[in-house]
């Protein structure tokens, strides 16, 4: 057995951390999109990830689609689920308080989880890697091609979102709704359409994350809750509503977990996310990148 150097182990932990962290970041971004437009924390975000993975398995294995169409079909199917959540649940309850709406999303997440259990059963499912299985060994560090795919998917989504929010009319309109819904409505922005769009968009992003990680982690009906929790931690840590903050915080969380498992004890891994979240809430409740002033204006 070759002894593996300290540097290689460090890199291995870092790689594992970044891969998981990218997923947390995508979940956190999903929270942020909906939060920005509606101030609702959508606790069904983790279930979107789970559904994305399971739908991809359905389209690829059962319907026999090639990988790319299966990916797109899964994202579309979950976006449709997001649409249903907004159109038939959230919109019906639009006069309720924000807190009630958040509780409604929790109920919806339980519904999705139960539904997935009925349809797919309790067994985990696998999906082949996007390109070639196995791994590449580089200086004692094993790299899974799928991990690179996860990073590529995350990178693409972040880049597209940045362009969308900064350049497109719809993106700017959504940001306007976030800043001040009343003023947005006065200048003729259809706030309701924007809310609708935000749910579809964040469902689609969650689904993309789910499809990307399924080849690495497998997917089963009750995976969503923990991913949702970690992603929420990242969203709060980065400052609710901050896309860049979510990205940094997600990666930070993934790395912290991985290094904790590697150098401290793997038993405390899950505690890391929650401890970081608590520390953030104690010392910088508006998050690493949030501004205190903006946080003060929000209802939640």
């Amino acid at each position, binding site marked *: *057995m070759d*002894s*593996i150097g300290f540097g290689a*182990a460090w890199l*291995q*932990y870092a*790689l*594992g*951390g970044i*891969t*998981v962290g990218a*997923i947390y970041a995508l979940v956190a971004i999903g929270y942020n999109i909906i939060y920005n437009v509606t101030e609702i924390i959508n606790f069904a975000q983790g279930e979107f990830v789970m559904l994305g993975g399971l739908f991809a398995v359905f389209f690829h294995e059962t319907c026999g689609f090639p990988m790319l169409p299966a990916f797109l079909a899964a994202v579309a199917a979950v976006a449709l689920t997001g649409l249903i959540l907004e159109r038939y649940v959230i919109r019906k309850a639009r006069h309720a308080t924000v807190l009630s709406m958040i509780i409604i999303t929790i109920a919806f997440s339980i519904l999705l989880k139960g539904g997935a259990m009925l349809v797919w059963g309790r*067994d*985990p*499912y*696998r999906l082949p890697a996007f390109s070639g*299985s*196995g*791994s590449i*060994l580089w200086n004692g560090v*094993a790299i*899974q091609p799928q991990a690179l795919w996860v990073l590529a998917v995350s990178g693409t989504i972040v880049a597209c979102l940045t362009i969308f929010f900064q350049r497109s009319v719809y993106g700017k309109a959504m940001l306007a709704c976030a800043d001040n819904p009343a003023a947005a409505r006065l200048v003729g922005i259809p706030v309701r359409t924007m809310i609708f769009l935000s749910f579809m968009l964040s469902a689609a992003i969650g689904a993309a994350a789910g499809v990307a*990680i399924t080849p*690495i*982690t*497998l997917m*089963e009906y*009750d*995976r969503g809750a*923990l*991913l949702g929790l970690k992603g929420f931690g990242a969203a709060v840590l980065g400052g609710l509503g901050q896309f860049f903050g979510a990205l940094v915080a997600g990666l930070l969380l993934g790395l912290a977990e*991985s*290094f904790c*498992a*590697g150098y401290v*004890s*793997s*038993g405390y*891994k*899950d505690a890391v996310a929650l401890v970081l979240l608590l520390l953030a809430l104690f010392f910088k409740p508006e998050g690493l990148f949030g501004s205190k002033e903006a946080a003060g204006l929000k209802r939640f």
Partner: protein
Amino acid sequence: MVGRGRNRCVGRASRVLLWVCALVLLTPVGVLAGGKPYKIGAVFSVTGGASFLGEPEKKTAEMIVEQVNARGGINGHPVQLVLYDDETDATKCNLAVKKLIKRDKVPVIIGPSTSGNSLAVVSVAEAYKVPLISCAASYKIVEPVASRHWVFKVAGSDKHVVGKMYDYMQAKGITKIGIMTVSTGFGASGREELLRLAKDYGITIVADERYGPKDTDLTAQLTKIRQSGAQAVVNWSVGPTAVLAVKGWRDLKMEGIALFQSHGFGSKKYLELCGDAAEGVLLPLARVNVGPLLPEDHPQKKVIMEYIRAYEAKYQEPISSFGGHAWDSMHLALAALQAVGPDRAKIRDFLENTRNFVGQHGIFNFSPQDHNGLSKDDLEMVVVKNGDWALAE
């Protein structure tokens, strides 16, 4: 008008009465063919979280009763199975056992399916002095044996699995191992035994890693073990993490470090999920899982192959090791009834003195000190080869 109404009522009442009489007269006819039926009580988790245990157990028990009655019962008495579903709920399980004892007055009970439910009814069996043969694994079900006078179990313990694994490692000259266990009851119990027994086999545990049942990435744990200089790694979990361990082990190119899995990996479903990655993974399994691989002269070969044939013909699905537990407990109960009749105390004494009972999970040798009757030698070391089980050399 009133008279006709009453007539109609009387007519309906008498018709109902006729049906009731017919039912009362007809039903026992089949049962009365022989002597008074011998009852066997059963509690399985047919629905709920542990339905994957209870479902094949129920099917197996029902199949055996059918077989026995088709052969004319035991000593001229037909066998009647009184089966309740505890829905994987300890409270319902407790009630079901009480119902079997008080209302159905069964002389012997088989089940429950899970360790938690079994522990919840141990005191009931003890209080009412009814022999109970549990199908669950925890050693606490039958230990301390002084306060488990009436309770037996047919599932092997973790110490047998660990013992078999360590035996194999000893034979291969492996002395330094890394262990990784899931943070559930299943993993914690395995970890305890791995740590406790290591010294007896001259094995040093150089890495002791844990992870959650919903973890998505085990490369950190595996990297640490790879660095620790371990010659082998033992993973103890069920569910997706058991598959992730295999995939991570393969991705990190750790083939030089043998991967051992617990008996929890003993399902073909895992092999499908792992694909090629599982080649070379080692695990101890009960012989019921590898019946076709056993040599012809093995004492268990015949009973296992017969069980497989009958079960697959009847239900069109493969057997599971859990159904094997029901087979073992059912046949122990039948043997006891045949030998001593439906007497609770005599059945208990018979079970405690049963030796060389050839079952699905091993050859049982009960004694006043051992209410499980199995040993590590009732397991086979199995290796994954070409996507299927093979006996390891």
